[in-house]
């Protein structure tokens, strides 16, 4: 049987990619964030996942507003990065796991979720940066990818309750998968930040702490807020916490936090890194 080894959560601010590219990990601005990662490297070396099921949001690379899925599951054999408009060096491609992707899709539809299925999908910094942070010396990624996209761009967004339920459905799929893979869940983005409007620069450490303090032990506590509440509390892009909530749901009923790092600011964002294991 496949084993769920745990979950890894981190922010995906594009500027992190620039800092990695320049080798700024020890720079005083960046060090408090990158200091959260030696523990991640040790943990991954110990639990040795070979598949990653990743919850993230597209930023206008794979999806445009002509077709904007609320939930999208990648079912490709390979996923490439591409120019996101900034002409930056491209991130490494990922090998997919189509059989597991389709197993997840079957379970989701059985559970009355109706995702868009993507046999071709570009992946952006929201997936690549967490991998660059997790495996800084990798020449190729040591895990296969099953990407699950959540719309955090165009309202109406799916509720926190719905995203947690989506994650729990993915957990059922992984629990019934007959392969012998070692699976890590990944949730990317957040935490509180707002890029647009006169409130640009808004960060809310109190709400972030509430999320971090409840995510492992009582994720349902995060579903008491409506999307409008979350935008008010976390900022317009702070709604990316939906990716974290879904990944937590996929980890399973009980979890314990084994690592946490939280730092303000990275660019405009309250940046956080968390590891959890099934409990």
């Amino acid at each position: 049987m496949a084993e769920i080894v745990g979950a890894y959560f981190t922010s995906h601010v594009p500027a992190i990619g620039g800092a990695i590219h320049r080798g700024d990990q020890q720079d005083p601005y960046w060090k408090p964030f990158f200091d959260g990662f030696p523990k991640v490297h040790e943990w991954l070396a110990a639990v040795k996942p070979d598949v990653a099921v990743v919850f993230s949001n597209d930023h206008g690379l794979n999806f445009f507003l002509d077709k904007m899925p609320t939930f999208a599951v990648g079912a490709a054999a390979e996923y490439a990065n591409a120019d996101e408009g900034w002409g930056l060096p491209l991130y490494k491609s990922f090998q997919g796991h189509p059989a597991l992707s389709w197993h997840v899709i079957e379970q989701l539809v059985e559970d009355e979720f109706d995702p868009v299925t993507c046999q071709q999908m570009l992946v952006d910094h929201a997936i690549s940066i967490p991998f660059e942070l997790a495996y800084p010396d990798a020449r190729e990624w040591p895990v296969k990818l099953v990407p699950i996209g959540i719309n955090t761009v165009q309202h109406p967004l799916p509720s926190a309750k719905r995203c947690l339920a989506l994650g729990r459905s993915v957990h059922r799929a992984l629990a019934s998968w007959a392969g012998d893979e070692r699976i890590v869940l990944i949730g990317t983005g957040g935490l509180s930040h707002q890029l647009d409007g006169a409130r640009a620069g808004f960060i809310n450490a109190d709400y972030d702490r509430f999320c971090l303090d409840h995510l492992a032990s009582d994720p349902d506590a995060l579903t008491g807020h409506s999307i409008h509440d979350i935008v008010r509390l976390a900022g317009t892009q702070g709604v990316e916490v939906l990716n974290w909530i879904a990944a937590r749901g996929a980890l399973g009923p009980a979890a314990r936090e084994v690592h946490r790092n939280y730092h303000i600011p990275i660019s405009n964002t309250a940046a956080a890194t968390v590891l959890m294991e099934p409990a």
Partner: protein
Amino acid sequence: MALPTPEPIPGTTLFDGSAAQMGYQLNAMCYSFNDKANRDTFLADEAAYCDRFDLTPAQRTAVAKRDVLGMIAAGGNIYYLAKLAGIFGLNVQDVGAMQTGWTVPEFKEMLLAQGRGLTYAEAAHG
């Protein structure tokens, strides 16, 4: 029946169906900037490129003035607008300063102040 409208959030525009309809042309233009050839074409003749995407007058004016709040009011979404900003070498902190009226160092200091434990209200308005 329409759903109840929640209390507005100060300084915040939700990118909803109404904004997505209004902003479609502007966001389509910004989405095209994923391709370097399109970025170069835009830089060579901005007005002609805006014509090609049939921008509304409000969108054209906001783009010409580099008026980010105007772009948002005309339906622009920040994930797409970030691609336009990138053409001019502007990052999200530059864009934050443009929207809040602070200088870029002031905007960065406001973020750092939140890292020292100040709330947003204290850091922004204290």
